[in-house]
């Protein structure tokens, strides 16, 4: 047996699974300290279907914490972006293409310094330690707690990023986290740098969350390995999350879409996942989430991740409703819904209150929303349906009819008929689709190495690397017949002799639940 948990901004969902069969499912409000919510969720799972701690072979956790932090511009560490590349790259300094509100939320500061490499490995200019120390002193003076360092052509040679991190670290001390771009992204300076800045801004939150998650699971007497799901639907361990929280970024949509596919049995459909804070809309094509092609914008920031093509709206069960305009969100009470929403005796009108007033859900105390004007309630729900339908319409690329599947706890906000699309499918266990998606997550094997490829031997060399990645995925616990190559990237390194090429391959397969990992 294994456990899938989805920790959202509003709700914590958990499922007890036997392979792909759901034995028990529970939903709980996310608590201010994420630990309590998970302890309660696992306790309730046990009450629903008894198990002993040692019967659990793995705990898979998906969390939207990190993306929510970015979308809501909250809980982000004061972050500095330091780029090595002067005199080049000055025309477009770090953060140049970021939305102003987000720059403000990060108290972000942008620094340019000498350094970086040319494509062929020659230095653009040598590092200037005094310049770096003076930038670091300025960061310190401005209360910076996390630093993202990027350097021109660092995927080809990352020496200067490491050396700059050492110099800056000496000034800032060990409590300031440093994220290096070559560990996060690939060729494409602005996109790699943006992903690194996002990662840096999330580092403090990541440690907090991982500590909470681990403590909660151990408290329930479960010693099985704990995994977090990544953007591509594969799993990573807790230590990795502390360093690279950005890799979990789109795991919410990936998990909900995979969960929707499993629970609805549909392979071609639009998936609307309404949580407590956001509505994520994606397309399932032949059972797989449609991926973005070139550019991926997250909270208005251009990155080069591979992730599902998802459109996010700031509408969720915890969204605050404006009593005059009837507009919903993007502000959300989040996990405080159980104290702040009207139905729970609070004083904030939320989307959940509207759903209860409309008789669409039985949550809390309905008498607390009896005073709401039915015409107003109707106006809010109609507005939500119209905005969601418009977003689905933007996602589809042809006017052909497409079935629409609603999942997530907040999907009670959605009427049974959606303008333009007709009936909305609501599969069994729709409310915990994310947790089911997390529980069926896959494991991967990644190879990232520099190879010397002899002329005429490229095909053979690549075949070898691919086989190596597949073996690694199987060693990590993937069922052999389910493994396939999901990512392949080749970067020539012209300044090294012998046709040196950096090859990255990722193979992915279903986690074999039959044995240990």
């Amino acid at each position, binding site marked *: 047996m294994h456990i899938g948990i989805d920790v959202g901004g509003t709700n914590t969902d958990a499922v007890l699974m036997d392979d792909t069969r759901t034995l028990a499912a529970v939903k709980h409000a996310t608590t201010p300290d994420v630990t309590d919510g998970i302890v309660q969720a696992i306790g309730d799972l046990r009450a629903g279907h008894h198990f002993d701690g040692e019967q659990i072979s793995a705990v898979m956790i998906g969390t939207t914490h990190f993306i929510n932090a970015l979308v809501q511009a909250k809980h982000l560490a004061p972050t500095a972006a330091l780029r090595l590349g002067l005199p080049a790259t000055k025309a*477009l300094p770090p953060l140049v293409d970021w939305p102003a509100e987000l720059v403000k939320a990060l108290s972000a500061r942008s620094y340019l310094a000498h350094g970086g490499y*040319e494509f062929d490995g020659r230095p*653009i200019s040598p590092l200037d330690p005094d310049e770096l120390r003076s930038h670091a002193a300025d960061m310190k003076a401005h209360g910076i707690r996390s630093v993202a360092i990027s350097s021109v*052509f660092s995927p080809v040679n990352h020496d200067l990023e490491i050396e700059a991190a050492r110099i800056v670290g000496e000034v800032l001390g060990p409590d300031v986290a440093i994220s290096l771009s070559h560990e996060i992204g690939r060729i494409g300076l602005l996109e790699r740098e943006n992903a690194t800045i996002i990662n840096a801004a999330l580092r403090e939150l990541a440690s907090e969350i991982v500590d909470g998650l681990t403590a909660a699971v151990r408290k329930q007497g479960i010693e099985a390995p704990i995994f977090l799901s990544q953007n591509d639907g594969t799993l990573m361990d807790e230590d990795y999350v502390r360093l690279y929280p950005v890799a979990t970024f789109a795991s919410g949509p990936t998990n909900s879409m995979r969960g929707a596919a499993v629970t609805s049995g549909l392979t071609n459909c639009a998936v609307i996942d309404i949580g407590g804070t956001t509505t994520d809309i994606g397309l399932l094509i032949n059972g797989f989430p449609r991926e973005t092609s070139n550019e991926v914008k997250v909270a208005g920031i251009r990155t080069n991740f591979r992730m599902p093509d998802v459109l996010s709206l700031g509408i969720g069960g915890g969204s605050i409703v404006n009593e005059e305009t009837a507009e919903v969100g993007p502000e959300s009470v989040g996990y405080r819904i159980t104290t702040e929403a009207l139905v729970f005796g609070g004083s904030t009108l939320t989307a959940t209150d509207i759903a209860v007033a409309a008789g669409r859900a039985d949550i809390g105390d309905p008498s607390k929303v009896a005073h709401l004007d039915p015409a107003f309630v109707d106006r809010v729900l109609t507005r939500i349906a119209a905005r969601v339908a418009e977003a689905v319409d933007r996602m589809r690329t042809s006017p052909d009819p497409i079935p629409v599947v609603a999942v997530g706890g907040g999907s009670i906000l959605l009427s049974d008929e959606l303008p333009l699309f007709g009936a909305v499918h609501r599969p069994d266990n729709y409310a915990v689709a994310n947790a089911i998606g997390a529980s069926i997550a896959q494991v991967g094997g990644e190879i990232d190495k520099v190879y010397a490829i002899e002329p005429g031997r490229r095909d053979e060399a690549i075949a070898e690397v691919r086989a190596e990645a597949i073996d690694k995925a199987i060693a990590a616990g993937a069922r052999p017949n389910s493994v396939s190559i999901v990512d392949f990237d080749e970067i020539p390194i012209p300044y090294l002799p012998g046709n040196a090429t950096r090859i990255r391959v990722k193979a992915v397969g279903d986690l074999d639940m039959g044995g240990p990992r």
Partner: protein
Amino acid sequence: MSWELTAADLPDLARGATLLGTGGGGDPYIGKMLVEQVLGDRSITILDPEEIDDDLFVIPTAQMGAPTVMIEKIPAGFEPTLALRTLEEHLGRRAGATMPIECGGINSMIPLLVAAETGLPVVDADGMGRAFPELSMETFAVYGVHGSPLAIAGERGERVIIDTGDDDRQMEWLARGITIRLGGVAHIAEYAMRGADVKRTAVPRTISMALALGRAIRLAREDHRSPFEAIATTLTTTLYSHVRELFVGKVSDVERRTTDGFAKGVAVISSLDPSSDERLEIVFQNENLIARKNGKVVAIVPDLICVVDHESAEPITTEGLRYGQRVRVLGISTPAMMRTPEALQAFGPTAFGLVEPFVPVEGDAAAAKAARTFQTDARAVVTAQGARA
């Protein structure tokens, strides 16, 4: 008619320019941001090539180098204007306008950056009608305007003048060497010419065409119409009248090398149907050069070979090609002035060492008709010039 271009036009122009980049030309996204940073709320005057004064002194500006370098080493910003000023100084004459030498990719944007910095207008025309990897591959050169003297500038403020007389290949070779020494990307001013020469040698209205294509793709998507039909409809009113779908499939392999200052390689696109062994192979040198379907040529330079997202029609550059992407490959015909024997000698298959002869993407009959029209048009231009003189 001349018109004003604002920052709001840049995203559509970037999309259209990427399509015309036929896989290369560099990512205009970076170019777009460079222009945005300088332009702000102001606008840039775009001059129609038919309406410019014969004596208008035009100095085209551009970036040169490998696209794989451009997405990593961003300019300091002043380099293209420095190249223009350096050439003005060398020639002892101030430019009245700038112009693209290449309408595809980032070079659609560099003259706009110069315009935003200097206030100069930009002529709505270029010398490639798409993107090409070499500076000598210009209709300017084909029809008698030479690139020299050329000014080249780097981010440390380095400036070099190259003058090779009428030998544009030698100019390209020397400039390429300097660009590699400067780190793989440099900025240039070259092909200085009079308005009368622009009318005779440039591919006309390619900035407005790129803008129209980018806009048509976006509007079609917003209205849930086919972006592919929108591309075809937009092209019918231009000199690029034919578009053909060459293949639909999944990127199954991309091999690339940065050699001699170019990004060279091969992309393989396989059928979406796993039981089919149909495949399209695209050879590129910065830009897509030739597309072979199951070994048979279906499109070849100078015609455009464009890889786009299979649903949204968003153009994909060779450096943006990734394993597993679902794509459509389009073949687009080029204007007759780009297919004359002299033009094919400069930038046809043999110029890239390909043994296959040029075959028009739309078939021979349609191409012959377009060629007749071009000859008539060319005579009309010459006659008009004669009348003015």
